[in-house]
């Protein structure tokens, strides 16, 4: 069974969309609703973005609201900070999450600190969108999952949707959030699934996890591109009579600890799935919180199913060795059941 978020502010009408279309719809609604919203990045204007997330928006809202920048990620983020200071709501696109690194000085030194070091005289209502993750045989350095770097940065929120409806609802919440939000979009999910997406100004609250499936035996915690992988593993486990509770975290910062702890208290077993490198990944934070707050409920050690401590491999033939697949997750589920 699938529980959906409580929609707010929409009429009840829906339209079938891919995730990239849902993101485009959210940006369209945000631009129409608020003149302060400005979209910029590399190739987002005339071309509509390399994944077409901003397709048609420049034509609709003009070259001042939706514009191409020179190729310099530090300046894209730094300029967005300045625009926020002066009252705009910038929505910047970084072409791939793996190209975010030149901007880390702006992000770590300023984006997360501005409210704090001006005692809220200034705050930065900025959104940085970036496609992330693997599974589609991209060239080298196009499949990184750097979410833990951002989650480790005080003052910024991190949101990673796993469905078209969530992508729309969470993106509209992010754009309307008074603080900076990173919005990572799984490349694998852009066009691989469609679902009914509420029309209009649909919002999904930041900070609430989504219960994807309910079950009594194992809790699987995941987000973004790993949710469909976990769902497939859960379906296979159900065939074997194992009830798996799949939790889609949706938001890493702030994390919905209550939903995780409540589920683990029930199942007594936790598997955490991400496609990021193993050491010091966000999965480790989830594991630590479970260990701190629910260890008395655990019937088996926590298992992390993740990428490995090597750069993401571009080798098509063996990419799936690195990126968790349903078989690896199913094996982890079996492991905690058999402990």
């Amino acid at each position, binding site marked *: 069974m699938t529980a959906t978020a409580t929609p707010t502010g929409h009429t009840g009408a829906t339209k079938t969309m891919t995730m990239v279309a849902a993101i485009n719809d959210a940006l369209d609604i945000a631009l129409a609703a608020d003149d302060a919203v*400005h979209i910029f990045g590399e190739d987002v204007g005339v071309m509509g973005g390399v994944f077409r997330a901003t397709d048609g928006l420049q034509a609709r809202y003009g070259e*001042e609201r939706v*514009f191409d*920048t*020179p190729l*310099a990620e*530090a*300046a894209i*983020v*730094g*300029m*967005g*900070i*300045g*625009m*926020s*200071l*002066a*009252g*705009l709501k*910038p929505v910047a696109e970084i072409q791939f999450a793996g190209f975010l690194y*030149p901007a880390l*000085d*702006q992000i770590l*030194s*300023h984006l997360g600190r501005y*409210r*704090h*070091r*001006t*005692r*809220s*005289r*200034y*705050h930065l209502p900025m959104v940085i969108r970036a496609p992330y993750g693997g599974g589609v045989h991209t060239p080298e350095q196009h499949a990184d999952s750097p979410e833990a770097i951002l989650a480790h940065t*005080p*003052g910024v*929120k991190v949101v990673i949707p796993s469905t078209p409806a969530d992508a729309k609802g969470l993106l509209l919440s992010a754009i309307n959030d*008074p*603080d900076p939000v990173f919005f990572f979009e799984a490349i694998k999910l852009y066009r691989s699934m469609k679902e009914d997406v509420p029309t209009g100004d649909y919002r999904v609250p930041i*900070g609430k996890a989504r219960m994807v499936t309910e079950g009594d035996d194992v809790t699987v915690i995941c987000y973004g591109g790993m949710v469909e992988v976990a769902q497939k593993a859960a379906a296979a486990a159900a065939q074997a009579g194992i009830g798996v509770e799949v939790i889609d975290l949706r938001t890493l*910062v*702030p*994390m919905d*600890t*209550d939903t995780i702890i409540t589920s683990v208290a029930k199942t007594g077993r936790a598997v955490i799935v991400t496609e990021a490198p193993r050491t010091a990944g966000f999965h480790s934070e989830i594991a630590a919180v479970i260990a701190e707050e629910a260890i008395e409920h655990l019937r088996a050690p926590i298992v992390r199913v993740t990428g490995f401590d090597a750069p993401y491999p571009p080798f098509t033939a063996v990419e799936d060795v690195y990126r968790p697949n349903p078989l690896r997750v199913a094996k982890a589920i079996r492991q905690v059941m058999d402990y």
Partner: protein
Amino acid sequence: MTPDTRPAAPQPHAPAESQDTAPGYAAAQAAYDAAQQDTTMVQCLAPDGSVVREDLLPEPETRLELYRQMRRARHFDERGWVLYRQGRLGVFPPFGGMEASQVGTAAALTKDDWLFPTYRDTGAALTLGLPIARTLAYWRTSPHGWHMPADLKVLPFYIPIATQYPQAVGAALAERRQGTRNVAMAFIGDGGSSEGDFHEALNFAGALNAPCVFILQNNGWAISVPTRAQTRATDLSRRADGYGIPGVRVDGNDALATYHVTREAVERARSGGGPTLIETVTYRVKPHTVADDPSRYRSEADTASWDAKDPVTRLRTHLLNAGLMTEAREAELLAEIAAEFEAALAEADSYPEPTPAEILDHVFAEPTPQLKKQRAEILAEHAAPNQKEQA
């Protein structure tokens, strides 16, 4: 016994010829030194205070106001040293000797414009109205120094190098998109002009026609590394050429000249003409911070020649010679400035120390569950003493 692997204490820079025999280094040094004598630099007053360019002289009241602001800045710098030695101010970067570069430029702005200062630009921030008490609190590492007045668009001092430059582009662009004539001014040093953010910002500002005025204060030193060792370029204003924007080189110890060129740049930006890079050629006669010992990397002779170019003395001589100020009026002015400072110091002294849980304030508009939990931890750990006893 383990061998002593500590590096030898660095010696003051010897003349370039013996310091570095790499081909071209001596030539680069000579070219740099020659460029510092560049007579094409915009100058209004000669170092002796005599007028070089009558046509650039601002109105008399503007000249007097520039002098007043420079004296305010210098007073802050001088009192800051004393307060530091008394343990009443933390480590701060002095800027004495750079007043014309900071005051003459910032004075060309209004309170509707943005100012992005680095940690050494107290003089610029004070000129635009940053309260002295807040500035003292900032260098006392008090959160009261983080409270920025609502009617000012002076941003907190930038500690990382060059990050303020792209941000100034964003603020400037936002003003333009919102239909105002306001501009953004950002400061940087010669050291910062090696950072990528500096170059990216100049390029963005040009490409997007952002109303920015970029002030590059070439004070000769990036902590211990002289400008000539940071770059082969001898005229940093020409860095603008690479981005298709105007670059201006000005005598950074001549407040009337820095004011004149900055006014022009501000006007150009306001009227849609885009950004300008201004190199103010000045000198860091003071150490990097009050805790720095420049004798480890430079000799007294390096700074001595700049004493004769002092910006405050230069404008003072002009004002006295031109009959715009008497020594009696100056004495009154200095007394007013001292009184203003002492009142601000008393205000700063009155700011209470922060409480432990304040470190978690202002992270987000709404604290996350994690922050709420951590606040409870801090409160439990640092309960007031009487509460602790009761517990």
